């Protein structure tokens, strides 16, 4: 077992859930309330120094009673130590957790992908928007278990939605703000955006 697990339990007590050791890997479940403190402790404390974030992902089980987990793989390069941290949510409830982007910059896109695929919202993330699907994708969050393999809409509807997005829907709001600062967004586009329309021609998202 990775000694960090015991150190975590000693430091954070109740905020640490169960610890599992299997196949040479240590997994620690952390409660969402003190999650950012735990991660900061793991990164900064001498003797831990998990300075490398390997991966951020989420897992939803087929069994609807099991919680949806957000899984973090951490590594300490100097100590050659790996650790898996999990945070559990009720899959039918709110999926919200603190972002670890202030600690590891590599988490930026990884968390965006978890948001896109699972709908988990990361508080404090500098730019949380869809990354793999287009920003105004309306079918849902693809990797959830209630999302069918072939999507919710019919194929012709999927083609129609893909082909008919407004051109400015392809730009993120940050880019549109740059264009607007230099006065390059046409008036009708600006009106449409102010009305909240980005996406299909003649319809709101």
């Amino acid at each position, binding site marked *: 077992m990775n000694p960090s697990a015991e150190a975590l339990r000693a430091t954070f007590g109740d905020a640490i859930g169960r610890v599992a050791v299997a196949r040479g890997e240590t997994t620690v479940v952390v409660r969402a309330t003190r999650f950012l403190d735990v991660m900061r402790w793991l990164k900064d404390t001498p003797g831990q120094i998990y300075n490398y974030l*390997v991966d951020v992902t989420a*897992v939803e089980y087929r069994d609807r009673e099991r919680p949806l987990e957000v899984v973090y793989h951490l590594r300490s390069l100097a100590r050659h130590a790996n650790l898996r941290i999990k945070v559990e949510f009720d899959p039918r409830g709110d999926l919200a957790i603190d972002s670890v982007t202030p600690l590891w910059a*590599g988490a930026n896109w990884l968390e965006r992908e978890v*948001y896109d695929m699972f709908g988990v919202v990361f508080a404090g993330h500098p730019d949380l928007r869809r990354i793999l699907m*287009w920003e105004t994708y309306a079918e849902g969050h693809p990797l959830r278990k209630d999302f069918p393999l072939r999507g919710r809409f019919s194929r012709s509807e999927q083609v129609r939605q893909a082909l008919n997005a407004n051109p400015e829907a392809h730009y993120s*709001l940050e*880019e549109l703000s*740059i*264009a607007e*600062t230099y006065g390059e967004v046409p008036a009708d586009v600006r009106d449409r955006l102010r009305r909240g329309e980005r996406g299909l021609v003649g319809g709101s998202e």
Partner: protein
Amino acid sequence: MSGGRPRSVELELATPGVDARGRPVRVPLSAATLPEEPDLGGEHLLVNIGPQHPATHGVLRLVVELDGETVIRVIPHIGYLHSGFEKLGEYRHYNQIIPLTDRTDYLSPMANNVCLAMAVEQLMGITITPRCTVLRVIACEMSRIISHLVWLGTTSIDLGAFTPFLWAFQERERIYNLQEQWTGARLTTSLTRVGGMLADIPAGFVEGLREFTRTFPKTLAEIDRVLTRNAVWAGRTQGIGVMTSDEAINYSLSGPMLRASGVAWDLRRDQPYLDYETYDFEVPVGEHGDVFDRYLVRLEECHQSNRILAQALDRLPDGPVNVEDPHVILPPKSRAMSDMEAMIYHFKQVMEGVNAPIGEAYCAIENPKGELGYYFVSDGTAKPVRWRIRPPSFINLAAISKMAEGHLLSDLIAINASVDIVMGEIDR
């Protein structure tokens, strides 16, 4: 870009966030600001590069905010090749996922196959045979060579040198011949199976590969002579796109990107797998973290891979390639047709797949692009609950906005090339 009077922006700029009480709110984005001397007529240009563009190495879209030729901000957009791999993996048996892995990082397919088989074997607790171990090392190093050759060829084209592309692809054809002899396919190899390989190497393979290792350094020397001390090449790559070692670790870079920045981390040496600790090879580590260093690191890695291949060929042991477990490995067809027990094992594996024990496993290898990791979660059935690909290029590419700030537009192309991305892996 500092100071200046920020003009009020009329758009509502906000992305979803969560407030302290856990309720969704919209978080304001940072708006662009006008530069200090607006009367000079300075205007920033928003330029869209891609997704269809020869120099983006696939369907990558970069939206660049330019002040003249200088890049102020670059915002990459990905997802143009999103194919739903991870969702597909949940609907397939473990062996059926192997053809999917060819198509994520299609520049080094055999290495992905090996990583997947290793991850499932870690999940199921299977130990492979010694011959299989050496064959997998051979497959990984062949993949490293072909991936770096594509990188060399396409990066030279981006920076204006066309000929190394043809030399590199000619070498790749020789590896493709060997891959085709072994697996039947040039690119989509599907080489491994859980517990073993697709097949043992055919006659003539060892001689062919040995001939390759003998003559490959000559091509590398030619490319080296043309590029490394070339004034144009050095001028366009030295000092460009620098990532310091702390930044590289913080951005979770891996592979040559990480090593060029001075961090001596290579999974083959620091978390060894497939007996890599018994091979004699060096891991090149750069110093400046710029594009030139990444080029040198990859070029040297080709030399070292060649070295490992020669050693692996020397030590290739006899014996079976597949594990002797009939629950996991299909019996030979002749036995499946004649022996009842073998037929039943064949039937169960093909129709139901092989059940994995409940649990999870993360297995990472040193892919040519970086650390490729497969994370499996199993609920005891033959199809995984979750298959996660930890894509090295995805994480490496996220750093491009950091690397390109303040450089010229032409440097942005060089930096993009140096990240060595493959969109299939980024978008999965």
